[in-house]
């Protein structure tokens, strides 16, 4: 019998009586599970109060908290020297809620992080325009602003598991190329109006001031025109240099590489510009050798962050939690299986659940101590359901390298060790 059936967990608005029943029924087990983690044995063991450190200009993390990203050079090439790294992954297993601290937002750059003086930075808007413009940062900050909480996800997120599953990976390794921040800036629509962009223009080239001059063609669909913006703010402060200071593109729901950092040029044209990144790099090779191009949308996805790879659990009560997201809009449902995808039950979605942002899901589970596998499966407001690995690989093959959104399985052995598995 499935242990979880004894302790059903309803959605957020469930009757309080069933919630009470759950917690009372599992209290004995849960108490045992937590006892081992408490170090002070009595209240008398808690260190006495006293005068603390002086106030300061900015708050540091507690000395008892260690949070950092993992610089990586490619699939399987982790914890490399920072000079060899091409990205740096967010510690999803150690974060709570949905907002990523700005200094831990995942990082991907192609030619290092430029040191830009905002007083000297300028944005050129030209091409199929009636009124080409040069804007300073002061000009941009003077314009009406927009803010929105959004995920940005590298197209390479998940690439560790295309061909095989290294058992020792954490969720930071498997899914750490996504983060959610509040971004603030100026709407693309207002820039189109400002520059008098020709209605025959269908693609916009965005180009960075980094050494590589990373440039991507962005389609001027209604969705992009209505939702894209250029951002100078991140979680209430100016962008961090690693994330594009002083200015970057935000294209909600579409692949991270389009969110050009250190933005210095927008050029309007009537066809894609076919840069290296949209031809040779971020295209997905299919089993027949053809490649999908301009597969720009980040598909519906989810992952359990606790318990997850390399963690250790004890029999009994488990809080199972994770993150779900979709470039299509809101997450409407996340299901969790604790028996290797044989049966599923709905997890709760914690508020707020925002379109094109990460959503936090949670459920409770009582582990019986037998080896099993846990999996999550998200559904978005367009009805897209996160695929299982088998059907995903049948469609995309194992050479695509980018846009991996198959369900993530964590295997749990009899000793409670959690490890990365393909299915």
């Amino acid at each position, binding site marked *: 019998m499935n242990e979880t059936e004894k302790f059903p967990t309803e959605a957020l608005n469930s009757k309080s009586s069933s919630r009470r029943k759950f917690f009372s029924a599992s209290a004995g087990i849960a108490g045992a599970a937590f006892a081992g983690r408490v170090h002070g044995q009595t209240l008398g063991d808690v260190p006495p109060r006293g005068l603390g450190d002086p106030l300061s200009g900015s708050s540091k993390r507690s000395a008892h908290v260690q949070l950092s990203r993992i610089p990586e050079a490619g699939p399987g090439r982790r914890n490399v020297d920072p000079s060899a790294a091409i990205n740096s992954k967010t510690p999803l297993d150690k974060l709570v809620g949905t907002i990523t601290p700005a200094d831990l937002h995942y990082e991907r750059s192609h030619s290092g992080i430029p040191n830009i003086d905002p007083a000297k930075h300028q944005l*050129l808007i030209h091409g199929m325009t009636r009124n080409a*413009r*040069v804007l300073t940062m002061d000009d941009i900050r003077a314009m009406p602003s927009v803010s929105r909480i959004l995920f940005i996800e590298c197209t390479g997120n998940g690439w560790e598991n295309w061909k095989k599953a290294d058992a020792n990976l954490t969720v930071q390794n498997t899914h750490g190329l996504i983060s959610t921040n509040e971004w603030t800036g100026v709407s693309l*629509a207002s820039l189109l*109006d400002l520059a008098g962009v020709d209605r025959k223009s269908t693609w916009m080239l965005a180009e960075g001031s980094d050494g590589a001059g990373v440039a991507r063609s962005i389609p001027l669909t*209604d969705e992009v025109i209505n939702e894209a913006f250029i951002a100078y703010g991140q979680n209430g402060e100016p962008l961090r240099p690693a994330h594009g200071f002083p200015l970057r593109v935000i294209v909600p729901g579409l692949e991270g590489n389009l969110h050009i950092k250190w933005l210095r040029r927008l*050029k309007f044209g009537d066809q894609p510009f076919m840069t290296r990144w949209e031809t040779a790099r971020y295209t997905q090779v299919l089993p027949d*050798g053809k490649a999908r191009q301009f597969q720009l949308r980040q598909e519906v996805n989810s992952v359990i962050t606790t318990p997850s790879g390399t963690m250790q659990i004890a029999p009994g009560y488990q809080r199972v939690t994770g993150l779900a997201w979709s470039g299509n809009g809101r997450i409407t449902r996340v299901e969790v299986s604790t028996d290797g995808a044989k049966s599923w039950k709905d997890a709760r979605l914690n508020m707020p659940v925002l379109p094109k942002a990460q959503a936090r899901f949670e459920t409770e589970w009582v582990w019986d101590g037998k080896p099993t596998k846990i999996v999550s499966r998200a559904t978005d407001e367009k009805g897209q359901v996160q695929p299982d690995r088998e059907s995903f690989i049948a469609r995309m093959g194992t050479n695509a390298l980018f846009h991996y959104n198959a369900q993530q399985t964590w295997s749990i052995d009899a000793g409670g060790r959690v490890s990365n598995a393909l299915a």
Partner: protein
Amino acid sequence: MRSHNKLLMAAVAAGAVAFSAGAHDFGRAPTAAEIKLWDIDVRPDGAGLPEGRGSVTQGKVVFANNCAACHGANGQGGLNDRLFGGQGTLASASPVKTVGSYWPYATTLFDYVRRAMPHHAPGSLGHDETYAVVAYILNLNELVPDNATLDKASLPKVLMPNRDGFIPEPEFQNIKNSR
């Protein structure tokens, strides 16, 4: 500031998120010379290619001096990508994606070298040197002959083997800018 305030009030009155009236109050017009300094992209039809020319022979020298340290003495790869070969591997278990086996447009190679290479000193090659090293890499892939010289007229005509190897996403095939 006054014109900005007026503009904002107009936008609020209209209930509009974006705005149009008086939008020219922001920024300034660039000169043609300024735009030319920054307008470095090159399209598959050759739009954006500058004057200049370079040969395979010249490119071999440019490559040895600027590229070989990362891409190998003959472009076979090293610290960074291999630049030739791999034809026929895209449908195999281990595709080898190079300029010759994967890149759909020769113009993209010019665009990329000009904007991003060499990695430690992007923008340091002149137009002639860029044409030359592009010719050399295309020659490594047997796509232009040993005696080839490339310029803005001839480069877009180099047909790449994987030109038709890409399936554009249907969602972005027919775009109407409705703004």
